[in-house]
């Protein structure tokens, strides 16, 4: 509203769809704050090998005598534990950054694969319709009638632990959301004139689907992807906490919190507390961005 008008009137800039999108998005200071926090957390996690005070998964750098030190204490080799250390003598700040990197890698990888699978299924269902559509959408309905955690438990109990397996489980959990979203918008798009025009040009079906219809289905897809990435991060942490997700050799926030759980009754709270805060900050910031994206990209709310 106000932002968009300013952008188009106040300056000589032409209002492109992207500029308008940026103006609409930044209208909510909360969402902008979420985006900034998310960007900081994401970059810090990706650069953890360079910026964290120690490599918490290199056993040579750890000293078990530094274990369970409260926040602010100093280790035997002079390293300050800002957020304390865990039972193995790991610096919590470093462990959290490494754990976040794993969370992001797992969530983003599974999100991309699930989006690719789901989009293809959704486009095919919408474009071909009829029996193919009924069959695919029934499969989606059945899949969605089972809660995510149950599907993950079934798969991981049968397949065993591992990074690849948890990514597979997350893909199987998520694809149906993408399929349903893409189908809904593709059904609207395929009746539009530009698709008819493409047909008249005798373009191949795959080209019409992926180059003409798909780009117009992207806005709702982006919203779903944002929310799904937040959900995947939470689910991966939950599964790792339960001991069925990532193997203990991988840095993971869920495992870190599970380790801290053993000591929580004796008042050593920081091993579980700070990784949880890191998870919370990450998930809340993604959800704030997702909420605003939904409002901005929703054609029904477009002014």
């Amino acid at each position: 509203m106000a932002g968009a008008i300013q952008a188009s009137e106040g300056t000589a800039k032409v209002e492109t769809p992207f500029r308008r999108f940026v103006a609409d998005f930044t209208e909510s200071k909360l969402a902008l704050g979420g985006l900034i926090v998310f960007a900081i957390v994401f970059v810090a996690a990706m650069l953890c090998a360079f910026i964290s005070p120690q490599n918490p998964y290199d056993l040579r750098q750890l000293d078990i005598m530094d274990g369970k030190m409260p926040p602010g204490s100093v280790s035997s080799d002079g390293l300050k534990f800002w957020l304390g250390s865990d039972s193995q003598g790991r610096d919590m700040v470093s462990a959290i950054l490494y754990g976040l990197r794993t969370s992001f890698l797992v969530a983003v990888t599974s999100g991309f694969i699930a989006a690719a699978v789901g989009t293809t299924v959704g486009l095919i269902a919408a474009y071909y319709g009829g029996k193919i559509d009924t069959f695919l959408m029934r499969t989606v309905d059945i899949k969605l009638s089972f809660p995510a955690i149950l599907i993950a438990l079934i798969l991981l109990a049968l397949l065993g632990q591992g990074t690849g397996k948890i990514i597979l489980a997350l893909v199987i959990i998520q694809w149906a959301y993408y399929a349903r979203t893409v189908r809904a918008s593709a059904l609207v798009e395929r009746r539009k004139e530009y698709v008819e025009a493409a047909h008249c040009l005798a373009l191949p079906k795959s080209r019409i689907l992926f180059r003409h219809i798909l780009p117009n289905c992207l806005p709702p897809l982006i919203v779903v992807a944002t929310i799904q990435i937040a959900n995947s991060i939470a689910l991966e942490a939950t599964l790792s906490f339960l001991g069925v997700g990532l193997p203990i050799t991988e840095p993971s926030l869920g495992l870190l919190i599970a380790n801290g759980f053993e000591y929580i009754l004796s008042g050593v709270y920081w091993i579980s507390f700070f990784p949880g805060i890191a998870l919370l900050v990450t998930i809340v910031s993604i959800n704030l961005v997702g909420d605003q994206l939904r409002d901005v990209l929703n054609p029904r709310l477009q002014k």
Partner: protein
Amino acid sequence: MTVFIIRRLMQSSLVLLLMSLLVFFGVFAIGDPIEIFIAPDADQAERARAIAALGLDKPIWEQYVMFVANAVAGDLGRSFVFNIPSIELILQRMPATLELAIVAVALSVVLGVPLGMYAGYKPDGAVAKTIMAGSIFGFSLPSFWVGLMLILIFAVELGWLPSTGRGEVGTFLGIQSSIFTFNGLKHLLLPALNLALFNISLVIRLTRAGMRENLPMDYVKFARAKGLSKRRVILVHVLKNILIPIVTVVGLEIGSVIAFAVVTETIFAWPGMGKLIIDSINNLDRPVIVAYLMIVVLMFIVINLVVDILYSILDPRVRLGDMGK
């Protein structure tokens, strides 16, 4: 209506068939069934007997038929750890999980509806904004971490409530439950609250949306104009209309709550089937894992079927739409 139910029943059987195939192939094709169903310390004679009983010397499709026949007969192997039939073990643990789930669902309605109604009635007030911010946290907080923090605050720091176990179990009208003893209730409160947190937020949001949608409607104005008190209009007329979507969503969420009890039970050492499955995965007690998966999938299929049929009774558009296809 009958056609709809028959159609849904057929779909449910199909899903059950698919799930049994998935579990079967997970166990028999990917894993080694000898390792899965026979305890590692069994002697040669026991092994031979078990191999014959499971039909592992037969072709794979015959093995599948035997697996299904055994499952229907309630025989999915004996637990290595407890040495009792795995299905029996799970059925023993089921009441504790159901109790936790039911109390959690009840909590989410009892807390969620009034908070949501208030937030919808005065949407711009500070209290309403606090409630809504709280509900965002309820959605975003990983529930296992909230459980730990509840233990840290109420059990470790304040020492008000116990952190593990189910406590004393009382019997009332033939039903055994922790609800009937004070000690049991104290044990139940934290796990139930933890499990309910997500649904409390969900109900708050649904109720608030319902309030905001219903308050400007003509029937509210009419009821006010007729001279009814504000309290009566909101608590009777508006509430009735809000409850329809809430009942549906809460019904659908019961299944999720039972599934998510796995997390809560692990944290609070609640002796239900969710804790059993996690312990079994860690102990490699595979007959219990297989039995749990089959029973829970069956339970879900039944819950989904019942909710769908109830929904179609409540909302005729659903079944008419389905018939039209």
